[in-house]
């Protein structure tokens, strides 16, 4: 009995957290009339509060068909998002991992200063860097291109910071043994650093995925061509009369994040814990 009460409380909280998702799923199955009736206090400013049913009165898959067959724009944005996220994650893996290894395992002048600078940059929100990013991208003629989104994200400091923590946790004795056995710098990195720091790498990539899958501000700022827009900008362009389509698009937007979370939830906890540990 003692153990059940906390479980009930936690279950209630879990349901409360998951309720928006349930709300979302119910909305995707409602027809337009029911949606209009339920959302009228919000959409038509008719007063009162939104009433929501857990089960729709007239369930329909109409909105799924409309989105899947009549909205090619959604798929353009979906694949734009896949492209941006994949490129960013790949770039971060290629760039961030060596950078974190270097900061964690090499001694060179101003290393500590550089680490502090990394942390400072990580702490800066995008709104602070937006103007400078814009000017740089404009000089590099990267505005209105996916590269203008990808490149700044590739060199983000947050994954480096996460992976730095994991690489720093590798015992020096292991590395010394490798050196004694004649291993070179690259061999130590690929055969000892990456396997031992995989958790940090994955957790950094999972966190980055969740961040860049829902990227809004950078595309809105740097992309004028709508054909380059990511999925996060699709919903703001859907009117109230297509609320059902908006619910369905939210479901499809949510799905990759859920899959990624499920795949990397073990590493994600480690990464979050690593980011919280004081150096």
């Amino acid at each position: 009995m003692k153990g059940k009460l906390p479980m009930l409380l936690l279950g209630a909280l879990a349901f409360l957290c998951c309720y928006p998702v349930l709300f979302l799923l119910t909305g995707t199955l409602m027809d337009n009339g029911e949606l209009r009736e339920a959302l009228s206090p919000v959409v038509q400013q008719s007063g009162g509060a939104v009433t929501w049913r857990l089960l729709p009165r007239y369930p329909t898959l109409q909105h799924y068909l409309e989105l899947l067959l009549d909205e090619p724009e959604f798929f353009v944005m979906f694949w734009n998002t896949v492209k941006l996220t994949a490129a960013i994650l790949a770039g971060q893996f290629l760039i961030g991992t060596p950078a974190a290894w270097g900061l964690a395992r090499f001694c060179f002048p101003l290393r500590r200063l550089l680490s502090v600078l990394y942390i400072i940059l990580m702490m800066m929100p995008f709104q602070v860097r937006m103007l400078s990013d814009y000017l740089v991208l404009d000089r590099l003629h990267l505005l209105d291109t996916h590269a203008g989104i990808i490149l700044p994200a590739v060199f983000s400091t947050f994954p480096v910071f996460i992976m730095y923590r994991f690489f720093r946790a590798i015992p020096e004795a292991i590395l010394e043994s490798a050196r004694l056995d004649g291993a070179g710098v690259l061999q130590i990195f690929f055969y000892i650093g990456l396997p031992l720091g995989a958790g940090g790498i994955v957790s950094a990539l999972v966190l980055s995925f969740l961040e860049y899958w829902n990227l809004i501000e950078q595309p809105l700022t740097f992309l004028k061509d709508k054909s380059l827009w990511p999925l996060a900008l699709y919903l703001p362009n859907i009117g109230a009369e297509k609320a059902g389509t908006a619910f369905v698009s939210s479901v499809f937007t949510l799905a990759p994040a859920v899959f990624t979370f499920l795949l990397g939830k073990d590493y994600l906890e480690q990464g979050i814990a690593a980011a919280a540990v004081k150096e």
Partner: protein
Amino acid sequence: MKRKIGSAFAGFLAFMLLFTLLSRAADSMTVARVTAQRARKGRISHRVSGSGKVVQNREQAVSTLAGQTVKAIYVEEGQQVAAGDLLFEVDLESLRGQILEKKQEIQIADLQTGDKLSALDAQKKQDAINQSHAAQDYAAAAQKGGTAVSRAKEEWNRARKKLSSLKEDATETGADAVQAVLEETCREKQADYDLALQYREDLEEAIDDLVEKALTDAQEDASAMRANVRATVGAQEVFTEETPFPDEAAQDTTADPTLLSAAAQTETENVSAEPENTAGTAQQREALPDGQESYTTPQTETPYTGIPQDEGEWIVGESGDQSWEKEDPWLLELRIRQENQPLLDAADQQIRLLKGEKEEADAALADYLQKKAQSAQMSVSEMRRQLTEEVRAKRQAYEDAVMAANDGLRSAAQAAENASAPKGSDSTAEIDAITREQKELELSKLERLLAADGKVTSPINGVVLSVQILTGEKTPDGTAILLSDKASGNKLVVRVSQEQDAYIARSDPVTVTTGSGKKLEGLTVDSVRTDEEDAEQLDVTVQLPADAIEAGVSATMEAVRDSELFDCCIPVQALYEDKGGYYVFVLTEKETVLGTELSAQRIDVQVLDKNETDAALQNGSLNGGQQVIVASDKTLAQGSRVRLEQ
């Protein structure tokens, strides 16, 4: 577990990839495929064409008298005939019957005309007799009234005179004075009676003279009118053959009809006690028509002197000059005597009255003498009272006579006025003459047709266009056979829509093509007129060269008129109409999630001119680089996504 999740993730991506392709395919099916082109400079050619039939320029109608029975028809529609060719023939039996009938109608009309003239003449005579009788009645009334008034006036004067005589002699010889008055009265009455007898004799003599004069004049006029009388009134031949004119009497008679006027005047003088009553005949004629004559009051003492005669003829004079022109002598004499009989009657009445008065005066004198002898005691005052009473009674009688005479005169004048009232105009004779002339004209036409043996021939060389008669039926009132004149040439008449009116006009060049492929160029439009049967159509006439195309052949006409040079011409199928205006769709590029897409943008334009293929737009309606959608496989609307097909 993680592998399953990974597989589900991969399946999700594959699912999304599949529907990416499907949505693209579905989208491409909904996008309209269009073709577009830019506006160009050009002219709008208006081509007016139509087909019609070649006809002759002039037609001629052949007709004959209506109501003839068609015996045979020798031509049919489309047949060519020469001048003089027999067209049709009418039945001679029926024609002869009509001629006979027409002649009889003319004879009947002549007889009816004679009867009408006779009746008209008789009516005129009756009117004259009525007028004469009215005048006689008026004269009789005047005579009678004048006599009564005069007599009453005399008696009144006599009574006054007796009273004054009594006043003068009252003191000395009152009784003798009365006797003297009575004796004087007896003398006067005797004198009046004698005068009346004399007047009666003079009047009879005057009537006899008038009769003789009238018979003489009638004989003179009869010789001149005899021929006419014989021609018009056969019955009057008895007058000349069986009743000779009294020539001897006419020769001996020198009396003027106006003598009776003098006699009447004399009578007036005799019966009138006043000098004013002897006014001349002319004065009487002038006074009568106005009806102003009347018996005056005793103070003015101007009694009646007028006679009602409008034409200024005294009663007897009119009878002598006009009334006996066509009468038997004995009838003439009888009528004259009848007309003057009232005068004789008036004279006889006057004689009877005067005789009665004379006898009364004698009786009064005898009575007085008897009374004088029997009652010498009668006082003068009593006599004065009696005389005064008598004067009053006589005056009253005089006034009554004046009123009665005026009433009689008024009634007689009214009757005479009615008798001489004007009659309305009568054009019966002229109308009969016109009707007879028309019948004679119809008769002459029938006779001419009979002379041609009932055959009707063609007056010209031509083609029979229509035959309006049927064998055995009656000929119509209008055209029997319609011919076209070959000598006048041919023309092509084409019917086109009224909407083409702006694009074809007189002198426009046209090309004419026959059904067999023969083409005539260089011709011009001769006329463009609204069709008489259908106001929505135009009749376009093209004169054809002589002998170029035979009449009756079908041919087509084509006229082309180019407009001015327009800067902005588009195919007409790119033009849409809405609420009386026009618009086009142009291609516009739009940046969307799917990339640069083409869409249709509606632009309202003003059409300057258009034909079946092209339309000219107002300058500035389109930009130079804009492509106008000229064809689409789907219905377009503002903003429709389109896909350009090259």
